[in-house]
């Protein structure tokens, strides 16, 4: 069975220039992500995991090479087009949750829906569903500083999925959490992948976390080293 | 105690070092305080200068007599026979020539203000040479005195600088006739410096005033004491006059305008100071927020809350003081000595200088420090009460 192709990265190069010097992070990197995949990206600090994720999410652009999303080269999009594309297809989950401190959980989750044409009752429904899914229906009215780290991250997940994107990009989503809470989060992600068919790319330093993914790639010195997961 | 001092010095030093991080907010406070002080000083200089000009005009050796109820010279009329009776009053000093008095006429003529080139009202005073002697500070600085019976004028120094058309030897048309400016006089910074003077009889005839005058000046037998004259007036049914010392007369004349300047100036400065205070509070709360980690860490090490309090307060006071000094300096450079003129109670122009007094500077600095103190006090309280635990938390 051949799954539908979501991402096709073709000989991506990325370098940062500091003054006259330029540091190459990747050179000629290739990668394929299918729909429904759950990829964990591991690798030493500074190997370029976050950079790669940013490029997948269209917040950063490769110096060279193409990033094809459903066959279209998104690296050629303008800032405005990228923003629309992100709003339609991508959900982000960050290590430090990045919730708006002055908004309640429900309002935080509702944020991405401001970018859609929806009635407010439709929005309310979607928000309730997303919060329900992450198990926080009873915390809708709470502000971030009234929630624990794990709960905040679940709100962040709800925010990422509320507009029903195809792809979730998570940068060390459990990096700031204890083992038990991390497990909850990972189980939620797994559920989203299995039952809701979300494609997930997750950067992590934790081999135990990587086990929740379908496959795991190692990034080292700008090269992929694919590793078999031991279930 | 010594250790507390050391702590405070250390905290203040740290504050100063971190100042560049909030340089723009700090400059905002500084500028705000500076502007407030400058505005206040400008007003004080204005009312000071005006008051000073009118105060130097009055002497308590001289009595001024006007028709009862008149607001000033403009609205007063004294007829010749009234003047004759008045001269006999006890309490008026006498010399070889009889009573030392001066009947004076006060007429409005047109002038042009140099700075704006707009028409203004200038006072023309008709008086006798004996009247000139009642002005202690009078001296001719250029040209000569007018000669009785001729269309000649002497003009005050301020008239020359502020209004055009009264240069020495120039002919000017006032009323029906032509007059020649034959001299310039100094009046020691008094209101007379804003006047044109001519011979009483000439002015009376050129302006159809018959033999009437508007005011009688008299040298008092006892300085400051007008009670004898007062009693005399009350007993003479033909005399319907008010008598005051010259000092009292000019104090009354200046009251209206100095009040306006003063009562406009202070509320304005206070309102603006409140605005600046909001800015100072903003800056200092921000400073405390920025340094909260640092303050908590110091407290964790064992520094006292007092040192955090004083450190913050000193920062605020220093900013306000610098702002206050800069504002005073600006006011001094821009306003001190500036000459201006306005309409006085007699519908004529009074020329005066902005004068900054030591008292004004002190008021300005006080206002700055009050802003600095209140602006620093509450944030300093917050700094002192900052929970130490935040030093152990992740900064967010």
């Amino acid at each position, binding site marked *: 069975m051949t799954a539908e192709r979501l991402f096709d990265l073709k000989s991506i190069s990325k370098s940062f220039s500091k003054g006259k010097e330029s540091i190459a992070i990747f050179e000629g990197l290739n990668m394929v992500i299918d729909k429904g995949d759950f990829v964990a990206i591991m690798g030493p600090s500074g190997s370029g995991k976050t950079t790669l994720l940013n490029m997948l999410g269209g*917040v950063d652009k490769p110096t060279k090479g193409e990033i094809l999303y459903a066959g279209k080269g998104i690296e050629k999009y303008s*800032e405005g087009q990228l*923003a629309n594309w*992100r*709003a*339609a297809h*991508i959900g*982000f989950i*960050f290590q*430090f949750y*990045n919730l*708006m*401190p*002055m*908004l309640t959980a429900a*309002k935080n989750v509702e*944020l*991405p829906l*401001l970018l859609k044409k929806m009635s407010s009752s439709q*929005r309310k429904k979607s928000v309730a569903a997303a919060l329900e899914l992450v198990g926080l229906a009873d915390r809708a009215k709470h502000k971030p500083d009234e929630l624990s780290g794990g709960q905040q991250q679940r709100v962040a997940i709800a*925010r990422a999925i509320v507009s029903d994107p195809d792809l979730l990009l998570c940068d060390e989503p459990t990096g700031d959490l204890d083992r038990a809470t991390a497990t909850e989060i990972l189980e939620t992600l797994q559920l989203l992948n299995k039952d809701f068919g979300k494609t997930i790319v997750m950067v992590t330093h934790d081999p135990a976390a990587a086990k929740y993914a379908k496959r795991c790639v190692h990034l080292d010195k700008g090269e992929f080293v694919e590793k078999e997961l031991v279930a | 105690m010594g250790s507390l001092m050391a702590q405070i010095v250390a905290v203040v030093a740290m504050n100063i070092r971190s100042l560049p991080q909030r340089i723009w*907010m700090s400059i*905002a*406070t500084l500028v705000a305080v500076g*502007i*407030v002080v*400058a*505005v206040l000083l400008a007003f004080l200089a204005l009312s000071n200068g005006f008051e000073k000009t009118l105060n130097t005009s009055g002497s308590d050796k001289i009595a001024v007599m006007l028709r*009862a*109820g*008149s*607001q000033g010279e403009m*609205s007063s009329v004294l007829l010749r026979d009234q003047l004759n009776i008045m001269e006999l009053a006890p309490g008026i000093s006498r010399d070889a020539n009889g009573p030392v008095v001066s009947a004076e006429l006060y*007429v*409005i*003529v*047109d002038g042009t203000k140099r700075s*704006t080139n*707009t*028409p203004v*009202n200038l006072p023309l005073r008709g008086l006798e040479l004996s009247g000139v002697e009642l002005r202690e500070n009078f001296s001719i600085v250029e040209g000569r005195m007018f000669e009785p019976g001729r269309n000649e004028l002497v003009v005050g120094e301020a008239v020359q600088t502020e209004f055009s058309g009264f240069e020495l030897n120039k002919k000017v048309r*006032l*009323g029906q006739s032509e007059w020649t400016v034959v001299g310039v006089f100094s009046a020691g910074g008094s209101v007379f410096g804003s006047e044109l003077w001519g011979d009483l009889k000439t002015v009376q005839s050129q302006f159809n005033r018959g033999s009437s005058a508007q005011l009688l000046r008299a040298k008092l037998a006892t300085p400051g004491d007008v009670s004898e004259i007062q009693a005399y007036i009350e007993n003479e049914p033909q005399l*319907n006059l008010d008598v005051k010392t010259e000092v009292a007369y000019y104090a009354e004349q200046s009251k209206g305008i100095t009040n306006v300047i003063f009562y406009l100036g202070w509320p*304005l400065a206070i*309102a*603006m100071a*409140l*605005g*600046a205070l*909001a*800015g100072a509070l*903003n800056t200092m*709360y*921000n400073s405390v927020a920025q340094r909260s980690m640092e303050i908590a860490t110091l407290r964790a090490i064992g520094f006292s809350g007092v040192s955090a309090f004083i450190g913050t307060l000193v920062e605020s006071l220093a900013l306000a003081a610098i702002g206050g000094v800069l504002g005073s300096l600006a006011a001094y450079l821009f306003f001190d000595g500036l000459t*201006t003129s*306005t*309409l006085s109670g007699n*519908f004529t*122009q009074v020329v005066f200088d902005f004068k900054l007094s030591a008292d004004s500077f002190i008021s300005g600095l006080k206002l700055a420090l009050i802003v600095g103190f209140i602006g620093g006090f509450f944030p300093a309280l917050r700094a002192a009460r900052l929970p130490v635990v935040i030093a152990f938390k992740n900064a967010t």
Partner: protein
Amino acid sequence: MSDFYLIRKNLTRNKLRLSLNSFAIFIAFLLFGVLASLQAAFDAGVELSSEQRMIVTNKINFTQPMPLAYVNKVRAVEGVASVTHANWFGAYYQDPQKPLVGFAVDAESYLEVYEEFVLAPEQREAWFNNRIGIVVGDQMARTLGWKVGDRLPVSSSIFTQKDGSSVWEMEVMGIFTGNDEQFDTNYFLLHYKYFIETQSFGGDWIGWITIKTTDPALNDEVSKTIDAQFANSPAETKTTSEKQFSKAFVEQFGNIGLMITSIVGAAFFTILFIVGNSMALSVRERTNEIAVLKTIGFQAPRIFKMVLSESILLALLGGCLGLFVANVLVNGAAQAPQLRSMLPNLVLTDMVAFKALGLMLVLGLVTGILPAWRAMKLNTIDALNRR
């Protein structure tokens, strides 16, 4: 939820900062409201003066008298539609320290020339028919508590009656208003005949003549003709338009406009600095959140608008409050008798309010534009994942 909700939440997240900033803005607009009203009151005399009216005064000065015979001579001049005359009475009521404005006029012609004058027809008739009758401006009547039918002893600080007394008995026959809210109603009018026949100087002399021309375009011509007619007579005249006359008078106080503009300018400059910095700071503190919004898919221009709206909202909040309190203060001050005699036209006009609104927008734009620009240009990658 909408963008406005987000803007509001951002604005109110730091309550202390919000109150301090809006207070600073409040002060700026309070000052503006009060000072601009003061200036408008000063200028109102000029603004409201008619283009068609001219004033004929003695050339020496407006305080010098002229013969009554001039009135008819002026009436005969080509281009003159109507003519009236007036004398300054120098009035006060009981307290000589509180002078009142009062003119002795020729009643019928006066009302003809001053069309903006509003007086009930029956009061008008009653006044015409009573020798000692006066009409009092609405504001003056309210300040002094005078009512129609009151008989009052009014004194003059300049004139005396033939019997030596300086008190005239007068009877209030009507209360007048104007057809504009800034119209000065802080004076009273008595009959010229009553005044001239009782005062001790004698003679048929008047203070000044007011004329209305058939067409403002003729003003220059008319004034030249009049002044030429009386040249080389004992009382030469100077004829100026009412506007010039009022303007010349106001200007004699000094440059009030410049003074007020400088103070308001200084206040605004200060507030600009304070609020601008504060805005920049709060946007800087929010760097991370703005980056998140952008990552989620918010367009950069939308973020620009949101930040700018926030600063404008702040300016409007403090500004409207300031303007409101200024209005209360101005109305209160206008009731104070001392101010009322000096500045009879003191009100916060719509014009001032509109200018204030414009200034609020400018203040909001200026303080918000840089932070908004920075927020728009914010580099998401730099801002995120960096702690």
